[in-house]
């Protein structure tokens, strides 16, 4: 069955995109030159159709208060223009979704994982008893374009008439681009600048053309996945889910240990206090001859210690790099781990994931 198409399907097809299926979507995999796309994102400016990420509009007096009680981070005091990452966890402290909460002034916007917007709404609804809140899935009625790369803030800022270079992490502002109203949020990929613009679906082609029109290079999912894996950032498809708790994923910077209770807090606080986190999300390099793909098991001294969850090829070097969860005894940077079923090949731990920093 063909996946969902974003409102920018036709515009990206005209740009030369070849499409692939991912997380239930039919998305631009590349625009024909992975090396040029990768270099544009790392050194200049690149735009990526990220409309597949879920978007939920929250209205009512209690939205932030409710989210504060249901998720890991302190979000109740977010002022207009401010935002924060937070994790919805089960009462056992397992990850339901990593979301971004944005206070846009007249309403709250949640950015969820792909295909997760309805699940997030249902989860919140389950715990809404007396609160004044209403949540609406606006994934289909809006589109999102990510402008990635060091020149992005200048280029997108001049199109929108605002200064994006000084924006704090997760800061947002209402904007109009070519008459289309929406908002821009700064959501960097670790050290790599990323500004995201969200507009109504029917305006999205025009906004996309405006951005392309000033010479920004479109990048597909293949390159955006390389950028993510290089920075040890968890993906919604492979590294986030109920198999993991947020401490294993290194999401310390999206957890408040001082705000009090939220669903799953008791378990997460105990894991922290007694240092009982058993495995960690790490990034890998691999031996040159390794035949590697997501799902491959890793072993140390004959004992299984983890599994690879993402693998990508770096366009500049042709090297394979990856992410995976490994037990704590094998998670130190520099540790060399064998591929369980391929004698002589190895994965080497390059970094432990810390998507939002060490927290504190």
């Amino acid at each position, binding site marked *: 069955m063909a996946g969902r198409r974003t409102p920018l399907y036709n515009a990206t097809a005209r740009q030369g995109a070849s499409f692939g299926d991912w997380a239930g979507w039919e998305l631009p995999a590349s625009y024909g030159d992975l090396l040029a796309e990768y270099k544009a994102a790392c050194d200049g400016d690149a735009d990526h159709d990220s409309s597949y990420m879920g978007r939920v509009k929250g209205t009512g007096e209690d939205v932030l208060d409710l989210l504060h009680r249901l998720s890991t981070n302190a979000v109740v005091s977010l002022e207009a223009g401010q935002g924060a990452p937070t994790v919805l966890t089960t009462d056992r402290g397992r990850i339901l979704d990593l979301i971004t909460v944005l206070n846009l002034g007249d309403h709250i916007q949640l950015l969820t994982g792909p295909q997760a917007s309805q699940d997030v709404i249902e989860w919140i609804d389950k715990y809404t*008893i*007396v609160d004044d809140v209403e949540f609406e899935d606006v994934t289909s009625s809006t589109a999102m374009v990510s402008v990635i790369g060091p020149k992005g803030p200048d280029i997108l800022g001049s199109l929108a008439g605002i200064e994006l270079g000084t924006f704090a992490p997760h800061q947002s502002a209402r904007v109009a681009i070519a008459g289309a109203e929406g908002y821009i949020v700064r959501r960097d990929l670790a050290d790599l600048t990323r500004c995201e613009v969200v507009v109504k679906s029917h305006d999205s082609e025009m906004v996309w053309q405006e951005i392309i029109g000033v010479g920004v290079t479109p990048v597909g999912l293949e390159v955006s996945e390389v950028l993510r894996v290089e920075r040890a950032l968890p993906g919604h498809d492979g590294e986030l889910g109920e198999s993991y708790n947020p401490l294993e994923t290194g999401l310390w910077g999206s957890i408040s240990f001082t705000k009090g209770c939220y669903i799953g807090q008791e378990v997460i606080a105990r894991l922290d206090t007694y240092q009982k986190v058993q495995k960690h999300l790490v990034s890998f390099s691999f031996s040159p001859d390794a035949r590697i793909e997501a799902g491959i098991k890793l072993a140390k001294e004959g004992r299984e210690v983890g599994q690879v969850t993402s693998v990508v090829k770096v366009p500049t070097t042709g090297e394979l790099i990856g992410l995976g969860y490994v037990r704590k005894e094998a998670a130190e940077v520099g540790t060399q781990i064998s591929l369980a079923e391929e004698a002589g090949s190895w994965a080497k731990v390059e970094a432990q994931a810390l998507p939002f920093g060490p927290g504190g």
Partner: protein
Amino acid sequence: MTTAYYAEDGTLTISITEKAAKMLRNFARKEGLDDEFGVKVGVKGGGCSGLLYTLSIEKEAGLNDKVIDNNGVKVFIDKKSYIFLAGTELDFSDGLNGKGFVFQNPNATKTCGCGNSFGV
């Protein structure tokens, strides 16, 4: 297993122990309310286990609140919260390690360590 509390007509109710009733009257007096008060009990999302008890002294019931009289104290409860609290006993745990007001809720299938949060 927590016991569920029933009213004389056989319906599930909210029960208040004598000790909790005495403490509630003390709190009401401190807030300048004598006999004309009620204790508003409710449930909201949050806490370690998903749902959180709420408790406050109120002068009068809300428009759609159910009002239950028990041990000389009126209990005000909104109808949505009542679904989660029917049959609950409100007690007071005092002493050095006391937890203050404690909900003994027969609907709770799990309760967090501090007792303020539960799941159904």
